[in-house]
């Protein structure tokens, strides 16, 4: 088992080194086969690890000590259990498909850039696997920052484009703000518990050692970390900009895997989070606010990837709502289904962009239904799944979160349903504008329209199947299901809550949310199947189109003032005050030297007088004793 788990992580690393170091050597074919092959290998090993967990439970393996000092120790341990084995399958499974897709999507790149792309992508999978496999918070943090690095490198993959570089930098810096929170939480744990290993920290004994303040502070700090990585208010603005990266990257990193790291982290630490009601409220409120805010923005966006990006932020908000109301397995469920349908939607968008020669504005599309049949049908499945229409996967996971939210507070539920309605609306606005009606692009584009190659459509088809049926892993008992997933997660999050809602309430809630979603999607289809959305005319429309001006707000309220402050330090404090004082001292010395020179009359008597006087002054005021005198006596004696 030690080798198998080790190689799950190592395969992608080998792939990274292979393509990274050999980028000028290998042909594109070799690069593509190797890069995809290593991830598939990792997937196969993940299946083995998963089966092992099913048959004989969780395994922790020790490799070496990362840090081992007299006072403190961080082992390099990896752990495969119910939670991490699920994430393993999603990461390597979806990861394999996206690698396969990329082999065709990135075909236009020169071969050494092609290799660079796959090297980064492999490195990402490596870091992501480390993140979920680590048996302590420090290993998780290593993966956590590692995925941030890869995200940075891939967003800025086309490095000659300044806008992309800014987006990459923004992503890394906003993530770093979150990371600081994460780090402080780790330090807090170390001070209080002397350990960062899950086996020690996440136990009832450790919990008993922590005061309420400790727990609230630690969980809030961890949540700050999650805010950065999983793009929650106020640290979400990097994610839409991250769409600058190649589209498969958006699918893998900025939709299916990396951005769900925050949910993984909180689920992993659920024992801590459940102990702080305050933090749970904060998480639920931020989650639902993020879900609604970004849904409103998505309604008015015209860039196919931007719509999907805001949709991702919004769906992540739902997951945090789930975490906040204690529905950990519901949140994980939504992570899994979302990974399928959102990866599908992004890859579908990529297929459209590919066919449209890098056009991303949906107003210039339309009528692609007949030209891209496979992309169309799979994209439609993705839209239905995310809109929450039964029996597609999104319905089950979203419903589970909403039901738990209702149990906590009907307000959460109502807001959640409102968000679900908006989701259905903007997704079908996107669908109808892109695929229905007349083609609105140039003749040349129309002439070149083509369905994507098999390497791209195969992942679409497989993900569409998964998006359609993945709900099966969590069919609630209400519907006569067994809810495999929540049973699976019992070792991590405990027994599923006794449903405090009556069956009739649950059916009613479900019926309402589905009905609202279906109505919203029909309105959208009807409205946009013939014509695209024009420029926003109303004040509200402009407000949403401009994303609530949050970027502008951050820029004016935070970035610019800090920049000015830095300039003030540099130009005024550093130059004039601190260095000024230093130089001033120098000038005073020079000046007094000129004056004192006058005392140098050349008469030895004066000199001796001054010497004696100054020695006396020195002794009286400074040392206040005579020991130094004895030193000089001894010195003269010896000489």
């Amino acid at each position, binding site marked *: 088992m030690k080798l198998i788990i080790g190689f799950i992580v190592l395969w992608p690393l080998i792939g990274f080194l292979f393509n990274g170091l050999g980028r000028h050597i290998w042909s594109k074919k070799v690069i593509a086969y190797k890069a995809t092959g290593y991830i598939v290998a990792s997937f196969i090993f993940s299946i083995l690890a998963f089966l092992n967990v099913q048959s004989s439970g969780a395994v922790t393996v020790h490799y070496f000590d990362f840090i081992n*000092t007299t006072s403190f120790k961080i082992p390099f341990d990896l752990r495969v259990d119910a939670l991490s084995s699920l994430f393993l399958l999603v990461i390597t499974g979806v990861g394999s498909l996206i690698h396969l897709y990329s082999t065709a999507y990135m075909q236009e790149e020169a071969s050494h850039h092609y290799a660079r792309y796959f090297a980064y992508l492999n490195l990402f999978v490596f870091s992501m696997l480390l993140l979920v496999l680590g048996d302590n918070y420090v290993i998780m943090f290593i993966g956590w920052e590692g995925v941030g690095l890869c995200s940075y490198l891939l967003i800025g993959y086309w490095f000659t484009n*300044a806008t992309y570089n800014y987006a990459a930098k923004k992503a890394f810096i906003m993530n*770093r703000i979150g990371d600081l929170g994460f780090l402080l939480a780790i330090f807090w744990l170390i001070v209080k518990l002397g350990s960062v290993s899950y086996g020690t920290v996440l136990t009832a004994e450790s919990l008993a050692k922590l005061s309420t303040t400790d727990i609230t502070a630690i969980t809030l700090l961890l949540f700050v970390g999650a805010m950065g990585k999983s793009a929650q208010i106020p640290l979400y603005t990097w994610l839409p900009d991250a769409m600058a990266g190649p589209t498969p990257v958006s699918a893998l990193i900025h939709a299916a895997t990396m951005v769900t790291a925050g949910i993984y982290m909180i689920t992993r630490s659920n024992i801590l989070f459940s102990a702080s009601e305050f933090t749970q409220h904060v998480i639920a409120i931020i989650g639902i606010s993020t879900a609604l805010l970004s849904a409103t923005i998505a309604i008015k966006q015209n860039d196919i990837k931007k719509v999907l990006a805001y949709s991702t932020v919004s769906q992540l908000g739902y997951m945090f709502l789930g975490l906040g109301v204690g529905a950990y397995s519901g949140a994980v469920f939504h992570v899994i289904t979302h990974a399928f349908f959102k990866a599908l939607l992004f890859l579908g968008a990529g297929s459209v962009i590919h066919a449209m020669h890098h056009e991303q504005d949906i107003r210039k599309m339309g009528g692609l239904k007949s030209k891209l049949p496979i992309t169309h049908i799979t994209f439609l499945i993705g839209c239905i799944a995310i809109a929450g229409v039964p029996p597609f996967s999104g319905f089950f996971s979203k419903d589970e979160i909403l039901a738990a939210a209702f149990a906590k507070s009907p307000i959460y539920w109502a807001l959640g349903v409102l968000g679900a309605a908006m989701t259905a609306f903007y997704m079908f606005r996107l669908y109808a504008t892109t695929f229905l009606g007349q083609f609105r692009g140039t003749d040349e584009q129309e002439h070149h329209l083509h369905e994507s190659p098999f390497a791209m459509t195969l992942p679409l088809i497989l993900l569409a199947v998964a998006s359609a049926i993945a709900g099966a892993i969590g069919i609630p008992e209400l519907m006569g299901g067994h809810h495999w997933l929540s049973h699976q997660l019992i070792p991590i999050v405990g027994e599923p809550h006794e449903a405090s809602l009556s069956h009739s309430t649950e059916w009613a809630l479900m019926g309402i949310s589905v009905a609202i979603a279906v109505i919203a999607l029909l309105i959208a289809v009807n409205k946009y199947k013939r014509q695209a959305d024009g420029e926003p005319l109303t004040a509200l429309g402009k407000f949403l189109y401009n994303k609530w001006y949050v970027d502008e707000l951050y820029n004016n309220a935070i970035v610019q003032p800090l920049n000015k402050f830095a300039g003030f330090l*540099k130009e005024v404090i550093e130059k004039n005050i601190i260095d000024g004082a230093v*130089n001033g001292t120098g000038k005073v010395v020079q000046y007094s030297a000129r004056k004192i020179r006058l005392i140098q009359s050349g008469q030895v008597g004066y000199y001796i007088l001054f010497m004696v006087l100054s020695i006396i002054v020195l002794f009286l005021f400074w040392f206040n004793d005579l020991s*130094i005198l004895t030193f000089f006596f001894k010195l003269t004696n010896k000489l």
Partner: protein
Amino acid sequence: MFLLLFLLIPIVAALLLLFIKSNASSNSVSIGAGILTLIGSIYLLMVNAGDYDTSWLPVLNSRFSLHLDGLSKLLILLTSITFPAIFISTKNNEIANRNIFLSLMMFTQAGLIGVFLASDALLFYFFWELALIPVYFLCSIWGGEKRVAVTFKFFIYTFLGSLFMLIGIIYLYANTADHSFAIDSLKHANISGGQSATVFALFFIAFAIKMPIFPFHTWQPDAYEQSPTAVTMVLSAVMVKMGLYGVIRWLMPLFPAAFLAHSNIVVTLSVIGILYASFIAIRQDDVKRLIAYSSIAHIGLMNAALFAHYQIGVQGALVQLFSHGINVLSLWIIADIIEQQTGTRSMKALGGLAKKQPTLAILLVAFSFANIALPLTNAFVGEFLMFNGLFQFNPWMAALAGVSVVLAAIYTLNMVQKVAYGEISEATNQMQLPNKNAQMVLIVLLVIVFFTGIYPQPLFDLTADTLTQLFVK
């Protein structure tokens, strides 16, 4: 005996260089001597070289005594990596009177090694100045346009600090029972608490200026900018470590009470300095000044971790002394290549390095991420432990200092973006063939970065004895 021989290698090489006129042979001598010291320092890691002790200034009862512990080994290793790395990577730079230049460099190396070995205070002081004086000449002769004024300031400033230390040393000496400069005697000097605090302050000023920490730092960016880059590398990779080394070797053991009594103020000062330097770094356009301010911030963190005085943080600082040296040396080597080949250090004028010289750009990106302490690079280990120590000392201080983690990402990635990315600028377009020697050196350094980042245990093991001495009474 081996220690003495080891110390003599750079001195002999320095003397030899004075008589060699040809550039090629002075390069060979310096690189040869540099590699010889490197081999010697690796040998020192493996064997237990005994102390060396002989009479030196019998009049004053000062002895030429050299002592080697884990920390000394680590810093001597750093010194011995730094010098040959500099010699190799700058060997084709145009330098007038190359042999004199290299000779002075070797004297500096001797002084540095001496500082890290001396266990007699007067001898320590002697080496301390020996390391400084050649640097004075190096900067004022081979430096940039404003070299005279800048070097003068640098010299006066640090020399003033040294004098304070000298007064402190003599004062302690005068109060020892056996009138000796040996560290063990000084430890038991018969002085009151108030006097101890005064002498502590005298030592501290010397070290604070050398590091430098806020607000004693203003000599540094100018000096880094104006010095020939080879000298800047020495200054920031090794020389500033003298200050931190002084704190660990002298300040902590000699004035334990005063040390703890002043920890609050010094940590506060350091944390202010960390943020202050980080903010200023954001606004720099000159690559060298940016690295200089970044370095001030990093040194400030090390100093804060030392004064916070928790074992875990001090351990982090010990490791970071080495790691920071490697990282900042690498950044300077890259900055030097860029300046040599483009004729500018202004980030506005640069850009497109990734297209022009991809290998160099990759190295720049890698070392930049090491500079911001990405996990699995060497700096993460040190910073993680140092922040830990600081957090135990005072969580708010750690949180404040932690802001620099974000600020470091801002200025470092800014630099990466402006230098490496974008279209090829006019200046970048002037770059000729890659400097293969330097790239080879950088690759070796990168291996060290990742090795000690992934498996830092050897560094812990090496410094265990130093740490034990500091914390186990």
